[in-house]
């Protein structure tokens, strides 16, 4: 066995947004085992929550994650409103669902870009993120910020979407649909992408159930769970949409589910906008004075799957216990199953297919030689290895 170079780069490096350490133990080219270290982004949010009032907790949970920033306040609002037993107005429901779906679109576009980057398709990366900008502009128009929207509060939303803004959003959605068609065509029909993603990183239906995986990760393996349909909240009972599933459970299936979900999100947004037109402007809050003692559970379908919040209240202004479970907490664990037995050049795209969000749960994959225990590749090199495999397939370089 030839000696490999040890390059000591920690869990931080420029190509990964968040820190976590995945150790892949490899025998030659094949991954045999996966170990990981996490806790680099542990901020003690659940504990912090106990020292804040319910209104302040919304600002805290929003910042758990930059990409799925709305899904946490969404689940938390569902949770607290369950304890209080309050019924929100229809206008609130539409606004909440619009924000939630816009977020799903921008998150999936971000993912498509990253997946493209990991496969060596940097043009896809640039396009996807370019088409994402109008969605972020819409957020800025509606909420004032590109991430962390501060829209939710107990009993309602903090800002209205004035009816005058509706045509702007509709126009943006029409543009987005055209751009998504372009992306879908470029990605789904490319034979090299098929070769790189079909049959790669398979997660079986049984694995999904064993790990209790959620979101597109589960739906791509034929397990049809979607909180928006199973336990409808906000405006989801008032609109029509399909839950997208696939059967193969490989990276291609996960990509397919995410891409097709974007169309459903656009459809939901357009239906909610029609619903908004019929509701009285400004009717966006219900007064809530106290949070009674008791427990509440709330979940919401974030772009990555089910976000779950659990609150124990004793009638005071702050939660006694606030438990947060992000979808990536359960989904990242499935990486163990989908990665073992594969070649290391497929490791980055397999991990990316889970769409891990470490703020919500951290990222770097490092390959170790199983026999000598030496680090043979860091995360950046793994990404390069993946991109090189694509170039070889295409006959470039």
């Amino acid at each position: 066995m030839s000696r490999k170079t040890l390059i000591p780069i920690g869990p931080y490096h420029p190509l990964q947004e968040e820190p976590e350490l995945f150790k892949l133990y490899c025998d030659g080219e094949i991954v045999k085992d996966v170990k990981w270290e996490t806790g680099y982004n542990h901020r003690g949010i659940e504990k912090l929550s106990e020292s804040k009032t319910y209104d302040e907790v919304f600002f805290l949970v929003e910042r758990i994650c930059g990409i799925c920033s709305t899904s946490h306040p969404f689940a938390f609002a569902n949770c607290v409103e369950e304890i209080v037993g309050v019924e929100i107005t229809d206008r609130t429901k539409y606004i909440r669902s619009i924000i939630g779906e816009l977020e799903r679109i921008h998150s999936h576009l971000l993912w498509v870009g990253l997946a493209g980057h990991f496969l060596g398709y940097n043009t896809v990366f640039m396009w996807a993120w370019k088409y994402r900008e109008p969605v972020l502009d819409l957020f800025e128009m509606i909420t004032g910020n590109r991430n962390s929207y501060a829209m939710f509060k107990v009993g309602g939303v903090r800002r209205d979407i004035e009816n005058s803004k509706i045509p702007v959003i509709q126009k943006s959605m029409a543009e987005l649909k055209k751009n998504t068609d372009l992306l879908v065509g470029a990605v789904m029909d490319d034979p090299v992408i098929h070769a790189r993603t079909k049959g790669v990183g398979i997660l079986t239906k049984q694995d999904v159930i064993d790990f209790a995986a959620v979101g597109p990760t589960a739906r791509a393996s034929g397990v049809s769970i979607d909180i928006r349909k199973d336990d409808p909240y906000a405006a989801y009972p008032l609109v029509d949409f399909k839950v997208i599933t696939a059967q193969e459970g490989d990276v291609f299936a996960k990509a397919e589910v995410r891409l097709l979900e974007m169309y459903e999100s656009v459809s939901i947004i357009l239906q909610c906008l029609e619903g908004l037109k019929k509701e009285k402007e400004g009717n966006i809050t219900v007064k809530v004075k106290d949070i009674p003692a008791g427990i509440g559970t709330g979940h919401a379908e974030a772009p990555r799957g089910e976000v779950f919040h659990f609150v124990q209240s004793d009638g005071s202004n702050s939660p006694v216990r606030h438990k947060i479970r992000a979808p990536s907490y359960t989904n990242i664990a499935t990486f163990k199953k989908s990665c073992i037995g594969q070649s290391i050049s497929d490791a980055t795209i397999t991990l990316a297919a889970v769409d891990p969000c470490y703020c919500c749960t951290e990222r770097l994959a490092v390959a170790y030689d199983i026999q000598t225990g030496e680090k043979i590749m860091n995360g950046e090199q793994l990404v390069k290895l993946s991109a090189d495999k694509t170039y070889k397939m295409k006959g470039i370089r």
Partner: protein
Amino acid sequence: MNVESIIKILKEKFTADIYGTAIRNERRFTIDIDPCSLIRIAEYLFKEGGFRFIIASALHTSKGFEIYYHWCFDQTGLIMNLHVILDSKEPEIESLSNMFEAANWIEREMHELFGINFLNHPNLEKLLSEGNWADGVYPYRKDFD
């Protein structure tokens, strides 16, 4: 399957183990059980009942260490909380990780934050705390004197 029918089935199968139930609304309920019956009930929920394990959450109170195991019945959107109370001096309970992987990480986390011992857990090592707090410190424990 609605809340009442599930409670009825569970009470029939595990009569001696359930000491309390609380229904909050038509899709949310809590069942209080004896810690030693956790494995039997969880096995029924997971293997036959078609429930999905969401997560577990622990809290240190004057009664001891209380754990809520949260389960979801996706077909009708029910969320059930399985509630156990563990001894405050030596909190321990059987691990669910041998039944399904989904419990693995959260049991490690509860062990790190509260010092609860999960018996027969395959690898009760640190998940988050390396470098963040000292060994033997359980930061989410409270003082009740």
